């Protein structure tokens, strides 16, 4: 048995490494000096794909929509063990909403013969939309928030979905299908400098709208129903009373509060 797996990934600002702030005119976040990495959820998806292929055979392709800089995340995931990379890049893709991105990725997915397509459950904008949209566009079964995958045979998977309260909803799903992957499904392997060097000179193909047969008017800003107006930081009531002073003063004040509120026994 051989499984062909496509994993859709995104290059995003690393929220563990950066303080995300709004820029001076509110048009974007402050992007100077940001550290970027692969979207955390996508990294779990790639690890899962590699583990499946290690067990049953096949190959893993990682794909992204982005510019030249997005190539680095493809290379990183290839250093983890993905076999192929594919960069979808075109000026016409700029300003795409979620549906636009799904349209572009779907076109790339249909050029292959994939048994399983995976995305992260969400990325930097927190929408969690691209996988479900691709599945609907391709008329494939979909399951979101997947935290367990078991291959039953060449036509079926058993998948667990993480639902409220830490419970797990088990499903049987027909292949080909689309799954969005939740963090915690596995422990993504570490990628060292040597791994990156190994794939540093691998050619990564780049495809644009015409290569994919995507109507440029259906994607990008032109095709977007959903448009960003601005970024802002909301005024949310009073917020916390910030304790200031020397550490000793702060701790003294905090202990008073804890005593008053029943926090010390």
């Amino acid at each position, binding site marked *: 048995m051989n499984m062909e797996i496509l994993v859709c990934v995104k290059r995003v600002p690393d929220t563990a490494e950066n*303080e995300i702030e709004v820029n001076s005119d509110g048009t974007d976040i402050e992007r100077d000096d940001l550290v970027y990495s692969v979207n955390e959820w996508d990294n779990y998806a790639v690890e899962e794909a590699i583990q499946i292929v290690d067990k049953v055979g096949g190959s893993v392709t990682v794909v992204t929509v982005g510019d030249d800089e997005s190539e680095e995340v493809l290379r990183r995931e290839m250093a983890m063990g993905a076999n192929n990379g594919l960069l979808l890049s075109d000026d016409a893709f700029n300003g795409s909403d979620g549906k636009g991105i799904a349209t572009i990725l779907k076109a790339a997915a249909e050029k292959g013969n994939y048994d399983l397509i995976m995305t992260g459950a969400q990325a930097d904008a*927190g929408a969690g939309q691209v996988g479900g*949209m691709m599945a*609907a566009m391709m008329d494939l079964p979909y399951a979101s928030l997947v935290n367990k995958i078991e291959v039953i045979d060449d036509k079926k998977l058993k998948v667990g979905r993480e639902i*409220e309260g830490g419970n797990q909803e088990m499903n049987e799903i027909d292949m080909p299908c689309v799954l969005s992957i939740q*963090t915690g499904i596995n422990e993504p392997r570490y990628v060292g400098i040597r791994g990156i060097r190994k794939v540093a000179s691998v050619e990564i193909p780049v495809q644009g709208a015409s290569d994919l047969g995507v109507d440029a008017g259906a994607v990008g800003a032109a095709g977007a129903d959903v448009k960003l107006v601005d*970024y802002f930081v*909301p005024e949310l009531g009073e917020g916390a*009373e*910030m304790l200031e002073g020397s550490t000793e003063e702060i701790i003294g004040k905090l202990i008073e509060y804890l005593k008053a509120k029943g926090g010390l026994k």
Partner: protein
Amino acid sequence: MGQIFAYITYKGGVADDSALELVAAAKKIDAGASVTAVVAGSGADCDAVCNDVAASYSDVWKIDSDLMAYPNAEVIRKALVNILPGDSIVLVPHDTFGMDLSPGLSIKMDSAFVADVVDFEGIDGDNLKIVRQEYGGAVSTHITCNIASGAVINVRPGAFQPDESKSAGGSVVDKSGDAGDLTVGRKYLEIVEAEVGDVDITKSEVLVSIGRGIEDEDNIEVAQELADAMGADVSCSRPIVDSKWLEKSRQVGTSGQTVKPKVYMAMGISGSFQHLGGIKGNPFMVAVNKNPKAPIFQVADVGVVADILEFMPELTEKISEG
């Protein structure tokens, strides 16, 4: 603008809190709109929920099928596509069901999609003005969504105050006959309940809860020492469980445990809405975080800007001294 629908999620014949929140959300889109509730499911539970939400919605559309005895989003999506008018504005709670259902629903209905909405700010022509958050709540955005050919909009649970007026006096219409073919490629099997851990944090009165700021598995004992000094238990946010540093049963949040302590110490936790969604009962919340802009400071009662790895041992020492 198309008709507004609200998708009602429920469990055991009882509507979720979001059922009344979506009434308020719909009114924020259009104060004068008559909003139709959609209740899908099977049997007595489905009927009970229909009758219950009729107090809050002028119309209730019931979709009853044996195939919906468990809310499989793949099945329900097919029924909704057949039953709802194409230009509808469909409001869905942004929970694990709504995340499963809605992106695909918007494609099948050929309408726009917006996830995890926290507020609406009126309509300008064909454009609905919407507020969302990005980067785990670190920044907010205004966006516009063209609703001319309909929209599916997932609304964050808890973002709108529930509309308790219950004055709609609505009636239930059975739409089950229009559901059409419900064959899908995904079959629900069973629920595997979360494992019960050594400590039941849902019963704890005081929690020392740790997030990414703990940095390393070895540092968890620093939090445990503080908890011991306070007579508290240690809980955590999602990344700690993902890293397998603590059991899943210690995780606070919508995908973990719902806790109701008197005092909640958020140590190195940024404060995503998924995490905050697991904290009920309005505890006294203390937040300690290196980042003065962490969203947790907006909801905490008392905040300290500090590195928890330096702050916690000093606090432990002072408490132990009595």
